[in-house]
């Protein structure tokens, strides 16, 4: 427990506190009066209002569109199911800079909707909402679908036998079992859309702004650290509240459910209704997820031959000190380091959280571990700069900073994946081993490890994919001679000229493929007994 606490203290709480303090302190005195001044501004209130309602609307829309998907992926067997499951998760780990651009190609001017029906959504809030569905589809499919796949269908069948209509059986049996998972997924989607940055910045234009975007603008462009600090606190409180509610629903979910192996519940669809449902879901996935991704691929191939891909290997483009292709190697190295850190810290935290004597304080830490997902990357980045600048913690120009920042985002995923599995390990096994004289290390190795090994691999895979795609904090601290893939893409997009644009699309495609492969491997390793939340 000490290590995760120290890790989060030093690399999260301390830097964030430092930058917030810098903003709220003028001439050595605290300016807490600023809090109210800022919140009272009509502009800021407008931002708060927009942030909240768009998150609510996005969450509702995501549930509406993704729940049928969750059902189909959980209960139906169809060819190509596994790769498709991996692909729908790709948007979730891709940098928004890239996908926002692709999404625009779908709903924007000249996009497919435009060509077919003359409908353009690029300046409307619909573009933001749909993009949020696109990004978070997988959250619902994995969280809800994961549980749905393991609910014993015989319970519902039993209810039907006893005379309940199919609707009633579903409402009385399946829905209550599913409800906590739906609530948890909804809260996660709400959290991600409440703190949405890239999507809103790219699709929202200058008229729509979330808290997160506003924090970025105030910090990075206007340099009004005081306002940024206040907004950070506001967001912190909001996110803290969401997480507290989330933790509560999760705990409620851990009521005993009769779970069975996912492989026995799925079967081929029967009857016209089920086939129609499957077709509908597949069509949604194609339009909503595959098309934007396909646009990226298409644009990357739009040059002569594989020209853009070949150009990636030469350094005379001038944008980098190294050929852009090197970014792949850098990204992989950073992601491996970040994964190692995330698995170590997350694993230890999860282990501590499952201990029986864990007090309420420790269980509160569970929710706290999720906070980095809800704190603006620019705040963390600036915090790193001013907080970690002195020995023994002078890390500002060290390469380790990038994996550290990425690990912050990876840890919550590791904890989420490991917790349910660790909690399922029968305590009596551990006790028996201890009684028979095994050292704590040996107990862990002989009892826990064999059971959690696959969960550990899944967690590592997710941390890896998330690290690969992390952009916000990385762009702040990545060194110029080793840009990561998302950073390289952003830099290429920042210059005029066909070759630069084409290379950006080619690199994005590579990133997408790497993520998809990582996720596909991960799906092969899926834990058999209980599934994590993502």
């Amino acid at each position, binding site marked *: 427990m000490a290590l995760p606490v120290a890790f989060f203290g030093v690399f999260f709480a301390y830097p964030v506190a430092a930058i917030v303090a810098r903003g709220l302190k003028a001439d050595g005195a605290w300016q807490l009066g600023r809090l109210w001044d800022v919140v009272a501004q009509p502009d800021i209130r407008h931002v708060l209002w927009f942030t909240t309602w768009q998150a609510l609307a996005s969450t509702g829309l995501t549930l509406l569109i993704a729940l049928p998907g969750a059902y189909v992926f959980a209960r139906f067997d169809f060819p190509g199911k596994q790769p498709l499951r991996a692909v729908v998760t790709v948007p979730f780990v891709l940098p928004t800079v890239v996908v926002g*651009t692709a999404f625009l190609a779908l709903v924007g001017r000249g996009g497919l909707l435009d060509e077919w029906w003359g409908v353009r959504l690029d300046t409307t809030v619909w573009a933001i909402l749909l993009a949020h569905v696109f990004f978070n589809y997988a959250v619902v499919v994995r969280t809800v679908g994961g549980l749905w796949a393991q609910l014993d269908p015989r319970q519902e069948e039993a209810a039907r036998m006893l005379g309940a209509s199919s609707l009633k059986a579903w409402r009385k049996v399946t829905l209550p079992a599913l409800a906590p998972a739906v609530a948890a997924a909804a809260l996660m989607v709400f959290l991600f859309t409440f703190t949405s940055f890239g999507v809103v910045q790219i699709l929202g234009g200058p008229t729509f702004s979330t808290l997160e975007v506003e924090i970025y603008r105030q910090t990075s462009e206007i*340099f009004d650290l005081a306002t940024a600090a206040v907004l950070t606190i506001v967001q912190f409180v909001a996110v803290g509240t969401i997480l507290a509610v989330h933790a509560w629903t999760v705990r409620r979910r851990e009521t005993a459910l009769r779970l069975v192996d996912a492989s026995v519940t799925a079967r081929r669809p029967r009857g016209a209704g089920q086939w129609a449902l499957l077709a509908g879901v597949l069509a949604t996935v194609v339009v909503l997820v595959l098309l934007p991704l396909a646009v990226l691929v298409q644009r990357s191939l739009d*040059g002569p031959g594989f020209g853009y891909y070949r150009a990636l290997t030469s350094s005379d483009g001038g944008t980098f000190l190294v050929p852009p292709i090197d970014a792949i190697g850098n990204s992989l190295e950073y992601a491996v380091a970040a994964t190692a850190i995330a698995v170590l810290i997350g694993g230890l935290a999860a282990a501590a959280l499952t201990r029986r004597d864990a007090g309420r304080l420790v269980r509160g830490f569970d929710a706290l571990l999720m906070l980095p997902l809800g704190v603006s990357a620019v705040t963390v980045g600036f915090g790193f700069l*001013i907080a970690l600048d002195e020995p023994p913690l002078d890390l500002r*120009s060290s390469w380790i900073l990038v994996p550290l920042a990425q690990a912050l985002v990876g840890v919550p995923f590791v904890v989420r994946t490991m917790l349910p599995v660790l909690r399922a390990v029968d305590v009596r096994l551990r006790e028996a081993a201890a009684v028979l004289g095994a050292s704590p290390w040996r107990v862990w190795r002989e009892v826990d490890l064999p059971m959690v090994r696959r969960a550990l691999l899944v967690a590592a895979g997710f941390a890896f994919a998330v690290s690969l795609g992390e952009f916000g904090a990385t762009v702040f601290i990545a060194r*110029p001679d080793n840009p990561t893939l998302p950073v390289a893409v952003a830099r290429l*997009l920042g210059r005029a000229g*066909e*070759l630069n644009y084409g290379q950006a699309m080619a690199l994005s495609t590579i990133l997408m493929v790497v993520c998809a492969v990582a996720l596909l491997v991960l799906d092969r390793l899926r834990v058999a007994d209980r599934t994590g939340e993502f």
Partner: protein
Amino acid sequence: MSTTKKLAAVAVGLGLVTLSACGSSSESGSGGSESKTVTLVSHDSWVASKSVIAAFEKESGYKVRVLKSGDAGQAVNKAILTKDNPQGDVFFGVDNTLLSRALDNDLFQSYEAKGLEQVDEQYQLDEDKHRVTPIDYGDICVNYDKKYFADHKLTPPASFDDLVEPEYKNLLVTENAATSSPGLGFLLGTAAKYGDDGWQDYWKKLKANGVKVVDGWEQAYNEEFSGSAGGKKAKADRPLVVSYASSPPAEVIYGDPKPTTAPTGVATATCFRQVEFAGLLSNAKNSKGGKALIDFLITKRFQEDMPLNMFVYPVVKGAAVPAEFTQYGPPAEDPETMDPSKIAADRDQWVKSWTSLVLK
């Protein structure tokens, strides 16, 4: 609720743990006086040829390390935040729109660079104190899509006045002045042209004439502007964009295959001049190396290497400019300019008024 209390308790606990962990040993032992490495902090657009840097390293004996830190605004802000314990010795890339922010925060120390007399007078905006040295300049101008205007048999606009004419309705896309440096440059250009009282009227007309505002240059140029490579793929429909005078040469140089002539042109009387400076950071650890590096930045060798790398023009008299530049993107003859102290005094207010005028 007790949950919130609990969270607060943990947060406080975390804070205490870390404060005690980090507060203990903060004295540093980094007194390495004569370092052989000189560190340049810059924005993401910094690029220099390897051979040119290698030549400097060989002649001076210093090894150059470059830290790029985000776009221009971010880089300046970061440098200010870390000025007590800077990340490097020299900062390159503060422009005239942000110069006052840097100077007011005492980011730089005085140093009169060797060879400064070769730098054109008009760019020396801190002549008395020499806290910054001009390195390059560029012009923010409206670019136009040649094909669109040829297809529509329409003369491309040339001036600010033209842009509000009915034949150019719904054609221009620009960037948010609050968040984008070309967007701000364009606003300052109109303020310089029409004065403190007139610019708001001008923007009202521009708005009535259908100007579109997006957040950043990437979107404006790659997604909305029909003349750029990205815009063509995105089927963009705005043939006018606020970009740089050096964007047309970039379209040629990075064309694939290279076109024989630039697909875009510049509306020459819509330009605002941006000058970029470098300075020796106040608490630079290797100030000797930093000085040598600044001297180097205004040598002809470096100045002539710049245009094709960073798409800017040299400030040193007599420095050669590549043929693509003279051919496709010569600098504006009579660009709008503004004194950095005037920019500093009015920028925030202007951006605020602009925001409520144009975006609301």
